[in-house]
């Protein structure tokens, strides 16, 4: 008898294909009945996928080790909380999770989106992708595959993944990945129908996906920082890059979207950006699942690489062929008339974003290129990515500063003078003050100059708008700020996200340029001093917690001989895997993060890697601002206000 999980997947596959047929029939026969039936079929397909997912959880919590996937990633001693992560700990489960999200999104789209031709043509595209994923799940990457024996216990979850960060990081990332199916489907429908409205319809979905992709990357960074033993948060690993690449192209899209909205320009470019974003999402899954490129994160070898590559080729060739057919209908107006205009600053921003995306893709795939042409794989480490992306990031910050105040179409001399005199002055004065205060690092000064310039232009524009509100409404400052932001959520959401990026950039710069570290062994009763901080070891303790033995040293921390707190860097021993894992202890004191990770521990001493990392918290604060800004921008619905007047 067919297993329930498999039955659910095959049912979902059957229903998805049926729904595609219904929608295509509806389009050909122009009969609403087909769409209504198709909608019900889509919801049933989602329910079948949900049933498969619930069943997998049932098997996980029941410790059913006759299911190979559960035997590989779970164990009797695994705490209940971390059993949640087993679902996406391996390639098969994560593919089911991704498929689940696509099917739910498809249902939401058919229920909530405006019922028009664009939707009717977008849904079959989403369903086709959903069907392909279900096919892969059932035939090539099935989490319900059975062993022909019943092990007494499973292998257990990798101890490094037994962390709350890993409960949140993959789902948020997959929400972002799966969400990008919707912009892609609407883009195809829009190009097919010659309907430029598609960009407006996908704006919020793209923001939604982008927000979760950002959140997923940040959870991943936070997990790396607080769980891994190296005291960093971004290692430019191929799998990390895989989630960063679509993030860049999607960010470029938000900006070029505004040119299409305002000027009916860059239509083909926007199509290509959405295509690139979706292709990079698929490339991400290829890198994670295929083992094509060495990565600390990959799921290991899998036989679905060829299927994913074919999928990418079909998507690419199909979209470009459609684009070639519709090329004459996508004529754009000239995107900008003057280099000194807001339009050109958006274009320049896209230029840099795409340059950065290309550099990251190229660096990530280069080991493979080297293997193909020379027979051996080189490693492309963080130094390459830093050297290439840091200058581009700084250029982007400068453009971010120019953009809010420069005029549309052609900025006048007066505009430039009014807009940039004060921000430039503030930036230069701050930089000089930084030098006086002792900052000598050229990169740090460049970041200070550009970031302060960008913050100033955003601030100046906001202050002017708030002043205007106060004058027009005769209200208090706080009320005016609220009204100004509330009346233009999209603009100020963007501004808040920009400030978030700047704060994050300051955090990245401060933490990477000014961190210092040492590795030492401290005995009980002894002290060790690093910079302004002194660490006095008071003792060693040990206890058993769930599936691990925890050993930790107890340290009093002093800053300039003043007691500021206690830190207990621990080592976990997992008997099941016979593996030691260092659990770093991170605490923030003022602007500094103190990061201590245990390298070894005995009954009366502990070997520690101690890092003092300034401005680290700015990264998380910046990220929070990005989230707030994105949510605010999502609250505003942007309609195609130009369609009637300017339709080509």
């Amino acid at each position, binding site marked *: 008898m067919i297993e329930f999980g498999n039955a659910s997947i095959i049912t979902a596959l059957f229903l998805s294909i049926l729904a595609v047929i219904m929608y295509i029939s509806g389009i050909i026969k122009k009969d609403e009945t087909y769409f209504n039936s198709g909608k019900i079929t889509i919801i049933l397909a989602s329910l079948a996928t949900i049933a498969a997912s619930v069943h997998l959880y049932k098997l996980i919590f029941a410790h059913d080790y006759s299911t190979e996937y559960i035997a590989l990633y779970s164990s009797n001693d695994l705490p209940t909380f971390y059993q949640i992560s087993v679902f996406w700990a391996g390639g098969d489960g994560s593919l089911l999770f991704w498929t689940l999200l696509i099917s739910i999104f498809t249902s939401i789209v058919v229920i909530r989106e405006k019922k028009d031709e664009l939707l009717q043509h977008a849904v079959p595209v989403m369903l086709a992708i959903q069907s392909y994923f279900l096919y892969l799940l059932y035939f090539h990457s099935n989490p319900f595959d059975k062993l022909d024996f019943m092990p007494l216990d499973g292998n257990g979850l990798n101890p490094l993944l037994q962390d709350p960060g890993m409960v949140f990081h993959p789902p948020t990332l997959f929400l972002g990945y799966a969400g990008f199916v919707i912009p892609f489907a609407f883009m195809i429908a829009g190009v097919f129908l010659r309907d430029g409205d598609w960009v407006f319809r996908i704006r919020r979905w793209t923001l939604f996906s982008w927000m979760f992709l950002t959140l997923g990357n940040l959870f991943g960074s936070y997990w790396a920082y607080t769980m891994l033993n*190296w005291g960093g948060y971004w*290692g430019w690993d191929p799998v990390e890059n895989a989630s960063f690449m679509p993030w860049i192209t999607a960010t470029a899209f938000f900006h070029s979207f505004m040119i299409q909205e305002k000027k009916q320009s860059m239509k083909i470019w926007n199509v290509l950006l959405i295509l690139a974003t979706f292709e990079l999402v698929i490339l991400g899954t290829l890198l994670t699942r295929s083992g094509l490129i060495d*990565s600390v994160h990959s799921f290991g070898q899998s036989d679905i690489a060829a299927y994913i590559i074919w999928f990418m080729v079909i998507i690419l060739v199909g979209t470009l062929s459609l684009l070639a057919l519709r090329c004459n209908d996508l004529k754009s*107006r*000239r995107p900008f*008339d003057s*280099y*000194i205009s807001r339009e*050109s600053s958006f274009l320049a921003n896209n*230029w840099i974003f795409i*340059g950065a995306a290309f*550099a990251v893709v*190229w*660096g990530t795939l*280069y080991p493979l290129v080297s293997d193909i042409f*020379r027979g051996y794989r080189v*490693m*492309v*480490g*963080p*130094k*390459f990515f*830093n*050297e290439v992306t840091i*200058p*581009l990031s*700084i*250029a982007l910050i*400068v453009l971010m500063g*120019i953009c809010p105040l*420069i*005029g*549309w*179409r*052609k900025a006048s*001399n*007066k*505009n*430039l*003078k*009014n*807009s*940039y005199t004060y921000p*430039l002055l503030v930036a230069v004065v701050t930089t000089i003050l930084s030098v006086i205060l002792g900052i000598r690092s*050229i990169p740090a000064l460049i970041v200070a*100059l*550009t970031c302060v*310039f960008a913050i100033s232009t955003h601030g100046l*524009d906001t202050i*002017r*708008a708030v002043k*205007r*509100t106060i004058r*027009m409404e005769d209200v208090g400052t706080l009320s005016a700020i609220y009204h100004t932001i509330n*009346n233009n959520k999209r603009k100020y959401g963007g501004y808040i996200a920009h400030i978030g990026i700047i704060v994050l950039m300051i955090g990245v710069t401060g933490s990477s340029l000014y961190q210092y570290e040492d590795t030492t062994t401290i005995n009980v009763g002894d002290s060790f001093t690093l910079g302004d901080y002194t660490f006095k070891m008071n003792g060693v303790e040990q206890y058993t917690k769930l599936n691990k033995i925890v050993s930790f040293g107890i340290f009093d921390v002093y800053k300039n001989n003043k007691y500021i707190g206690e830190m207990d860097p621990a080592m976990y021993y997992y008997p099941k895997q016979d593996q030691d894992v*260092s659990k770093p202890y991170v605490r923030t004191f003022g602007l500094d993060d103190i990061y201590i990770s245990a*390298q070894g521990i005995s009954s009366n001493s502990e070997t520690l*890697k101690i890092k003092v990392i300034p401005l680290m918290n700015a990264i998380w604060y910046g990220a929070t601002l990005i989230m707030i800004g994105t949510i605010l921008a999502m609250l505003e619905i942007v309609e195609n*206000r*130009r369609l009637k007047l300017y339709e080509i």
Partner: protein
Amino acid sequence: MKYKFGLRQSLGIRLRMVLLMLILLPSIMPVHGEPVHEEDITEILRCQCGCTMIVKDCSCEEAVNIRQVVRDQIVAGKSDKQIFSYLEKTYGEGIFAVPPKKGFDLSLWVLPGIGVAIGGVVLYRVKHNSSGDGDVFDDEYRQFLKEQGTAGVITDTGMSYEQMLDLEYRKNMGLKNDEDGDSSE
């Protein structure tokens, strides 16, 4: 009516552009210098335990040993080049986590720059080769920007920044726009 920059205005704009370029200039300069310290060397070395991490960050025994080798070489007064050469002899080419800027590997370093340069040429061509939209579109676009009430100066509309802010405010508040904004700057 097409706006033309006067000589003085043009000079002012150019001076500001030069200022902006001065800000942008450092962004194209390399941020990292040549390796001089242990960390600068170990950040471009690949750990040999198969973990795919760089020696600077890895905690495994292999990485600890390599760090010690680098430290010893620095203490012995060796230059960066001598240390790299020693490491290559001892561990082979696979010790490096970043390919050198020569031979086939030069393509890794050069292609992103070429890509960005091609992007710049495309931008230039977009500006100079595509046809304009004529006066009809100029009028439409001007009107559209007024309707949008975008807070920015559009020279052709003859509206000041303050006037545009007014328009933006009115638009957001759903007020009828009774300011035509035709006054010249």
